[in-house]
């Protein structure tokens, strides 16, 4: 058993899942938490309140297409959205490293205000701490999001069924690739932006329109599409079968992954969602998604089966089918 936490535990893959189970779930034992969804649902009087928390530690704090502030609001709103909740309010706690520029802080906070307006949510509570130089990487932001779920809406990673279709709302790996670009030491330049965006306006109307037919919503953030689909496959005890050629990827993302030996299926997305829906509505859902600028490239990328529960498989261009595992930690550039 490992005695030290390493960056692998923060990567969103197997190592993270392992840490969460062994250290946190074993002690914070309650059925709602252990469902492993993006937000937990608490019953308050006759309402179902969704609660989620997230921390944002991205370095550098600014990247093409956004910054840590925008990421914080979108990430939180999206987690609530994935459980079908209307976002009511967000809290924001800041841990700031001594020496961080006030101008940078202002940019980040303005970005949060702008994004909150865009998403139609308010930042209703906050906290600020300053730590010694070296104790934080510039700035860390922690949020809590509160929302309310309409009666009749039931979403969760455990609800995927045999025969369901798997839809992705657009190209994969954009955010992860954009952050890599922003890391100057790799010396890469490209016209590629993070896809960071709030997805509530896109997805909540669809969930309301097809309450029983859309069963799972999840945004494939840390660990990428592969890791998130594995989580769902485990929660629902199903096999998710993907078609490699159906998965939309931008050519710049392909360039970065080819150059560094990375895999786009394991890079983070911050403005995309997986929808798992009844096969009856998949075509109609695609038509509706295509009308929105955030989902012009939405595509059906796979289907759910009951054959090998808890796994994800992917078929290559020549039809060979292999298992697509969960991510295992840091994705590192390689030459071999």
């Amino acid at each position, binding site marked *: 058993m490992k005695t030290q936490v390493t960056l692998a535990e923060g990567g969103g893959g197997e190592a993270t899942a392992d840490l969460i189970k062994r250290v946190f779930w074993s002690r914070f034992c309650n059925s709602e938490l252990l469902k492993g969804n993006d937000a937990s649902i608490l019953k308050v009087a006759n309402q179902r309140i969704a609660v989620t928390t997230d921390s944002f530690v991205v370095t550098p704090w600014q990247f093409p297409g956004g910054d840590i502030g925008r990421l914080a609001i979108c990430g939180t709103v999206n987690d609530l959205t994935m459980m079908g909740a209307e976002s009511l309010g967000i809290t924001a706690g800041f841990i700031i490293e001594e020496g961080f520029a006030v101008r940078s802080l202002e940019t980040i906070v303005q970005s949060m205000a702008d994004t909150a307006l865009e998403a139609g949510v308010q930042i209703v509570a906050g906290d600020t701490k300053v730590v010694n130089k070296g104790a934080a990487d510039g700035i860390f932001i922690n949020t809590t999001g509160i929302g309310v779920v309409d009666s009749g809406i039931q979403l969760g990673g455990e609800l995927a069924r045999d025969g369901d279709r798997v839809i992705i709302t657009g190209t994969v790996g954009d955010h992860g690739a954009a952050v890599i670009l922003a890391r100057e030491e790799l010396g890469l*330049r490209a016209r590629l932006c993070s896809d960071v965006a709030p997805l509530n306006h896109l997805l909540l109307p669809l969930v309301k329109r097809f309450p029983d037919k859309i069963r799972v919503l999840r945004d494939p953030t840390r660990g990428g599409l592969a890791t998130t689909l594995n989580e769902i496959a485990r929660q629902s005890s199903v096999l998710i079968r993907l078609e490699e050629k159906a998965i939309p990827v931008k050519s710049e993302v392909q360039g970065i992954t080819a150059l560094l030996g990375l895999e786009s299926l394991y890079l983070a997305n911050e403005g995309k969602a997986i929808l798992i829906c009844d096969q009856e509505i998949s075509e109609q859902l695609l038509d509706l998604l295509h009308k929105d600028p955030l989902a012009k490239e939405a595509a059906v990328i796979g289907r759910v089966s009951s054959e090998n529960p808890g796994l994800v498989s992917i078929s290559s261009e020549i039809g060979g089918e292999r298992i697509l595992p969960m991510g295992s930690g840091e994705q590192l550039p390689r030459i071999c």
Partner: protein
Amino acid sequence: MCLAIPGELIRITGDKGEVSFSGVCREVDLRLVPEAVVGDYLLVHAGCAIQIVPADEAKLTLELWNQIMPGVAEDER
């Protein structure tokens, strides 16, 4: 054993060049391909160009197919 991918040489500055890989640009060392000119496609490994390659690799693969398996690869690009 070695990841090497082709990209287009878009600028030369002394011993180094700017190469574009599907729109992603990086500085690449050109000392091993002294004959390279702007517009060439270069095979790049670990930040160093190791070969000039044709822009249309797929065409050459098809020609090779036709040599070793006549009549099989009938589809023309």
